[in-house]
């Protein structure tokens, strides 16, 4: 049983994936002669290889060895950095990722791809390197055992200056068998001439035991250049009994020479652990797996320190308050108030600090795009470059993980549909190389990510024609620009004349929009024909906390996400427009907004059922505006979202709940859900009415 290192696998994996990213971005920016970059790429590969070897991920080790060899040649200047080499290395990075993932999940991988890449790597390297490694292990086997050795050891005078000490060498030898030592003091100079830093002794050693010559040589491995070493095997002149008695003991010693008397506790625990070995191993494997699924966050020490600091302050405030409470008299009310004030401050800061832990710079999400754009440029044959701005903008980890795919789709879209071929660009007086830019910044409690291209822009007419063709809109409909762009996000819409393998992968822009909405965000499009397009993604900073408007309906308090609110207004009687049935429209400038009384939707009792007295909160989702009729507007505040699904069950029209300051529970309204609920209700009522008519008609007949 050995020292169990499996607990380090997750951190190795994390480090390896970081290393791969570093290699990838390094390779993408690699200029010939940029030695620092080659060095850092080399180091990343080197670390992966080293770690993988330790954990027995042989497929990773073997493959990475090839990569490392190629990089080593580049590093030493033996090989020029060519584009072809960079491409192979990029592919190799992909393969390494596959292999490491396979090792992590104990699953299969695309062996064909790895085999292809590794043979291309081998070709690039020239085949001679592949065979040299194998010989090393072979010649070790041939070494002979003997019953012992006479060893003559004459070190150079300067031996100690490399940190070697003969004493330790001898004690290591003594572990192999029984050792007798004779020091030779002949060369010892007169006391006057002795330099305390020099070594003047030499030794004659006799080692008895069944020992391999290799083992003895290994002990002297580090000093062999600095000494005269003569090994003479001892023939079987020694009494047989000795060698017969020893073997079992010797055998043990050679397999586990690490253990000696000074560390008995280790030996015991190792032996104890050796028996339930298989069960133990299984347990660690499953533990490791669970860990990788849970995922981890790297947090700067400063963030943790500030947390500890804040908790300290909280504890102080708490003890102060509890002391106040012990024998409270009204005179102390002022101190109580200031204590509570302090508590509020502490809690707020603590909350912010905890939130900051989940915040990561968006460069984590952006890091894959240089490679993506590089690959897209190769695939489409268009010249383009990627500009990334604001990569230090911080975003919640969960949001970051989920925004990755939609962003990839948008960037693909820009490369495929946006950027034109070079000749067209030149003809239009644009730079030959197209530019796609990614920009992230904070804007009023939200994060905005812009995907911008300087390509063709969106052709309004062709979008319209296509939408009419697909039956999405009426041929005579007049639409504003933004309404036209919204058509891009309709299910089943694709503007490319033919679906290419880049952006047309069955995942449409509708899915992009849905994913963004699921995160509580929204997407907007701006475009100028011939100049380019901008897709603007608006996201909440975090999913755990929400800026909400508290509203009152009857005795209930509801929370409307601030991001959904367009405006809130006092209802003006003259602008109310009652259409057939229960439908009420409210004229809001150029729009007619359907009014949705919350009390009706949730069957609540309220005195405020007259629309004239109510307040209207106009909200927007899916490009649809509705006015929510509420009794009163209360405060705006940040609320912590508690999942309804985890605590109770999913309820239509409600996205979650929160606990208010007075301890009561308030529901958070799911605006898109409510709108579709209202629409369904209206349609159902319509159908029911129509159905009723036709029944009547039949009866008449």
């Amino acid at each position: 049983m050995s020292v169990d290192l499996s607990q380090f696998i997750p951190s190795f994996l994390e480090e390896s994936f970081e290393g791969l990213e570093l290699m990838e971005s390094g390779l993408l920016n690699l200029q010939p002669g940029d030695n620092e970059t080659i060095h850092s790429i080399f180091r990343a590969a080197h670390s992966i290889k080293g770690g993988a070897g330790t954990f027995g991920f042989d497929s990773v080790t073997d493959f990475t060895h090839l990569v490392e060899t190629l990089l080593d040649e580049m590093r030493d200047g033996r090989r020029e950095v060519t584009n072809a080499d960079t491409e192979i290395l990029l592919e190799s990075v992909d393969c390494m990722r596959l292999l490491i993932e396979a090792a992590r999940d104990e699953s299969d991988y695309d062996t064909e791809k790895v085999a292809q890449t590794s043979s291309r790597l081998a070709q690039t390297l020239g085949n001679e390197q592949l065979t040299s490694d194998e010989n090393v292990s072979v010649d070790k086997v041939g070494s002979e055992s003997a019953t012992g050795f006479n060893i003559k050891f004459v070190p150079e005078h300067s031996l100690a200056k490399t940190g070697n000490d003969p004493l330790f060498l001898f004690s290591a030898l003594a572990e192999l068998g029984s050792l007798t030592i004779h020091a030779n003091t002949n060369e010892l100079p007169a006391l006057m001439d002795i330099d305390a830093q020099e070594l003047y002794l030499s030794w004659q050693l006799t080692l008895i035991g069944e020992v391999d010559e290799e083992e003895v040589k290994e002990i002297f491995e580090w000093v062999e250049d600095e000494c005269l070493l003569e090994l003479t095997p001892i023939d079987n002149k020694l009494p047989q009994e000795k060698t017969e008695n020893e073997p079992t003991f010797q055998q043990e010693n050679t397999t586990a020479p690490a253990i000696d008397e000074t560390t008995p506790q280790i030996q015991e625990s190792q032996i104890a652990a050796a028996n339930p070995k298989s069960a133990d191993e299984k347990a660690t494997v499953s533990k490791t797996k669970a860990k990788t699924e849970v995922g981890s966050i790297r947090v700067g020490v400063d963030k943790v320190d500030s947390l500890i600091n804040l908790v300290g302050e909280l504890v102080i405030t708490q003890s102060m308050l509890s002391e106040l409470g012990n024998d409270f008299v009204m005179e102390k009310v002022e101190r109580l108030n200031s204590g509570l004030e302090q508590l509020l401050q502490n809690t707020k800061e603590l909350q912010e600090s905890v939130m900051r832990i989940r915040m990561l710079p968006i460069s984590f999400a952006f890091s894959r795009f240089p490679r993506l754009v590089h690959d897209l440029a190769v695939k489409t044959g268009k010249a383009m470059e990627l500009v990334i701005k604001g990569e230090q903008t911080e975003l919640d980890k969960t949001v970051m993980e989920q925004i990755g795919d939609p962003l990839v789709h948008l960037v693909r879209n820009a490369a495929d549909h946006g950027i034109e071929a070079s000749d067209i660009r030149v003809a239009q007086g644009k730079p030959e190389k197209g530019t796609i830019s990614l920009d992230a910044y904070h804007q009023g409690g939200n994060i905005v990510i812009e995907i911008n291209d300087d390509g063709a822009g969106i052709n309004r007419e062709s979008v319209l024609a296509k939408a009419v063709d697909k039956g999405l809109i009426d041929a005579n409909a007049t639409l504003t620009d933004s309404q036209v762009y919204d058509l891009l996000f309709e299910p089943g819409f694709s503007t490319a004349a033919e679906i290419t393998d880049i952006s047309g992968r069955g995942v449409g822009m509708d899915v992009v929009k849905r994913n963004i909405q699921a995160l509580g965000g929204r997407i907007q499009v701006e475009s100028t024909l011939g100049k380019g397009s901008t897709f603007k993604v608006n996201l909440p900073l975090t999913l755990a906390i929400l800026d909400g408007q508290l509203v009152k309906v009857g005795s209930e308090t509801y929370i409307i996400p601030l991001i959904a609110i367009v405006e809130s207004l006092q209802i003006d009687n003259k602008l109310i427009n009652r259409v057939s049935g229960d439908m009420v429209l409210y004229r809001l400038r150029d729009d007619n907004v359907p009014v949705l009384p919350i009390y009706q939707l949730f069957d609540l009792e309220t005195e405020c059922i007259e629309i004239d007295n109510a307040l209207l909160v106009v909200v927007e989702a899916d490009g649809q505006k509705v006015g929510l009729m509420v009794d009163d507007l209360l405060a705006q505040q940040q609320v912590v979202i508690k999942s309804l699904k985890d605590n109770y069950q999913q309820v239509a029209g409600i996205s979650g709940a929160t606990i208010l300051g007075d301890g009561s529970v308030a529901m958070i309204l799911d605006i898109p859900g409510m709108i579709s609920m209202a629409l369904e209700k209206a349609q159902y009522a319509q159908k029911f009415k129509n159905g009723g008519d036709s029944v009547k008609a039949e009866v008449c007949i």
Partner: protein
Amino acid sequence: MTKVLVVDDSNSIRDMVSFTLKSAGYQTVEAKDGREGLSKAQMDGFDLVISDVNMPNMDGISLCTELRKLAAFKFTPILMLTTESSTDMKMRGKAAGATGWLVKPFNPEKLLATIKRVVK
């Protein structure tokens, strides 16, 4: 207690070396590259230094050269942890004053066995 300075830019390797040494009763201090290793060595004495070769800022060979210039590290064993088993690398290490080398992949038993050759 025997005190070991472990220098490696890879977190996991550093953790593993440290863990192995600690489990055998050694005391360890970690550094993430040669520069940090050197400054820790300047502040404190060590009985053994184990260092990676390839590191940013200051590589293991330079660290070794620098350490040997310090009076306190004149005789301190310095082991290079390397995947490169080529004699060329070993010669460079020796020339810089390294005591010996440990070849990766890193194996805990082997590590503990080999450092016995240079420290208690």
